[in-house]
């Protein structure tokens, strides 16, 4: 099986869909690179190079560089989606999304509902998230809980190169607006990625480890940490199930509840701020639907409720890691 990076997997998914369907277009800041300066075309391929190579193959009609005006190009992408194209718009860092909430929350997310099902909005918004890049408070947030909060949006968090390709193809073929979260730190991770096209359905969790003592639900970059924690726990005689929900909206609550029914213990690992987060959401779900299965309190492993610090030493402390997951899971098994 060919090994590819997370970045290559996403690039391959978009390129493949552009070849398959002429309605798929790409737009964003520096997606081509050097707009207006022909000698610099394809100089960037997005700020971290994910769309590199698309401009030479598909040309300026289908790979569009936009001004630094997120509200304008996200609005344009939503309109293009509603009128027949299938845009993949890159909004560099999710931290900047605030300037176009109206286009996303009130327009794209609402078209299908407010037009009585007569409109579809096959829009993909790609965006980078997460800490660990020494990029300070305004370029390191997670924010996927904010989008999960809005009915009408689908929210996707690929945790590996394999997941990234299959979920991106599904996102492009999906008829609803999808916000696709790419973790900056994962871009250079490699893994087995088939050359062929494949889709991973939304709302179906992946069980990356299987055990009977504790359920660990983790998102995005945290899935790898949860797997490491599960392997460490195994050496201590604690067997853990690790659930990667893949999408926060729709959420595979069944997989989580089925697993908690077996283990009776739950740890949720979320890189987002702890208040109104996926950690809080899943804790609510299990407390409400599986209370009688629980043998111990639910534990969440999250950063503190502060901005992401710029100090490298503090940033390293801020991001949840395998040791904290091991500690939480071990505490639960001692509880009863």
């Amino acid at each position, binding site marked *: *099986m060919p090994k590819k990076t997370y970045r290559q997997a996403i690039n391959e998914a978009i390129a493949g869909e552009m070849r398959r369907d002429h309605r798929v277009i790409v737009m964003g800041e520096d997606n081509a690179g050097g707009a207006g300066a022909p000698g610099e075309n394809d100089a960037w391929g997005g700020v971290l190079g994910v769309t590199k190579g698309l401009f030479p193959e598909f040309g300026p009609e289908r790979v569009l560089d936009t001004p630094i005006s997120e509200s304008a190009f996200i609005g344009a992408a939503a309109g293009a989606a509603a009128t027949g194209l299938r845009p993949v718009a890159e909004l560099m860092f999710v931290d900047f999304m605030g300037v176009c909430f109206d286009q996303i929350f009130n327009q794209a997310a609402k078209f299908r509902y407010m037009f009585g099902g007569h409109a579809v909005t096959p829009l993909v918004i790609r965006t980078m998230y997460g800490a660990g890049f020494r990029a300070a408070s305004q370029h390191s947030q997670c924010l996927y809980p904010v989008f999960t909060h809005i009915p009408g949006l689908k929210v996707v968090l690929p945790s590996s190169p*394999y997941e990234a390709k*299959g979920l991106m193809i599904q996102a492009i073929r999906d008829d609803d607006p999808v916000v696709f979260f790419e973790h900056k730190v994962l871009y250079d991770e490699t893994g087995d990625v*088939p050359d*062929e*096209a*494949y*889709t*991973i*359905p939304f709302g*179906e*969790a*992946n*069980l*990356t*480890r*299987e055990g009977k003592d504790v359920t660990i639900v983790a998102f995005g970059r945290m899935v790898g940490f949860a*797997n490491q924690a599960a*392997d460490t726990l*195994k*050496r201590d*005689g604690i067997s853990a199930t690790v659930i990667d929900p893949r999408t926060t909206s729709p959420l595979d609550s069944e*997989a989580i509840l089925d697993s908690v029914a077996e283990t009776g213990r739950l740890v949720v690992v979320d890189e987002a701020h702890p208040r109104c987060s996926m950690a809080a959401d899943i804790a609510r779900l299990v407390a409400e639907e599986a209370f009688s299965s629980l043998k111990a309190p639910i534990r969440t492993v999250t950063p503190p409720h502060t901005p992401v610090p710029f100090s490298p030493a503090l940033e390293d402390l801020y991001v949840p890691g395998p040791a904290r997951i091991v500690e939480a899971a071990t505490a639960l098994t001692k509880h009863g």
Partner: protein
Amino acid sequence: MLPIVMPKWGLAMEEGTLTAWLIAAGDTVEKGQELAEIETTKIANVYESPAAGLVRRLVAQPGEVLPVGALLAVLAPASAPEAEIDAFVGGFVVRDPEPEGEGSGLSERRIERDGRMLSFKVAGAGADGVPAILVHGFGGDSDNWLFNIEALAQDRPIYAPDLPGHGKSGKQLLRGDLDELAKAVAAVIEETGAPRVHLVGHSLGAAVSFRVLERWPDRVASLAGIAPAGLGTTVNDGFVRAFVAAERRKDVKAALQMLFADPDQVSAAMIEGVQRFTRLEGAREALATIARENLPDGRQAASFRALAAETATPLLLVWGERDAIIDPAQGEGLPERVAVLRLPDAGHMPQMEAAASVNQRLAEHFSAAGG
């Protein structure tokens, strides 16, 4: 002094956890006897002894995570002094896994035939014996032989292809009939460079192997059918339809559980492995085509009963008594010289469920058939 080491089950395996010993120091073990339970992040299974001898020392402790090739136990004659065993254990060095494509290590190859990729695993390429080709069944791939390849490769080169439409081979099919699948096996026979090979076919792979025997009898030294198709008319059509249609985890799990006597054998990794295959563009269509061609109206299209009764080629049939897909009774009523092994606690996947017994019986069958 014979080291028992952490086995390598599949290309991806780098380390394993010894979960339990099934023997004690001082026991005399047979080749093929169950030694220990070993678990990886993907699979759990019983490890069978690669050799016979007296267990002088259990080196690894239950719960230990060890790399492939790490020393688990030492077999030695009773006459060997303790000090010599201490020295052997102390001086044991874990060998680096062999680079792909060399020696007896497991490697993966891809060739192009008829404009389509044909992928197969090779192990024991340096061994002397007549090569054996392991042909998986409907919806399977070469990983169905995870617990067999290493054991069988001790005596001979082992080739395990992904049939057209399956695994890492090309998904586009011409007709998806036995002839097309048999042609792919013939291409692998050519790759071995050997005049004759042993064929081992599981389920539909057995029908494919029978077709190879029918068309190229001179190339087949022996044939073993494991839960074989091709000897009766009925098949559990519910499984075939459920497997082709299943998209969700739960549905895949339910379908796979029909294959095993013990439903707990179906792990999350096995389910994800099947889903990774059926998600590929063209895979589900390929499965539907093969099912339509070979199992029209839910019945087996091809019968090789006459061939099995007449051929001079040594035949072995292995069945799990609890096979819910193909009735073991379909192996009855053939001439005496067709050897039959029936395993009480296995379902449709005896090569996984009773790997030790199957490996041992296959090794005997190959030797009896001449190398």
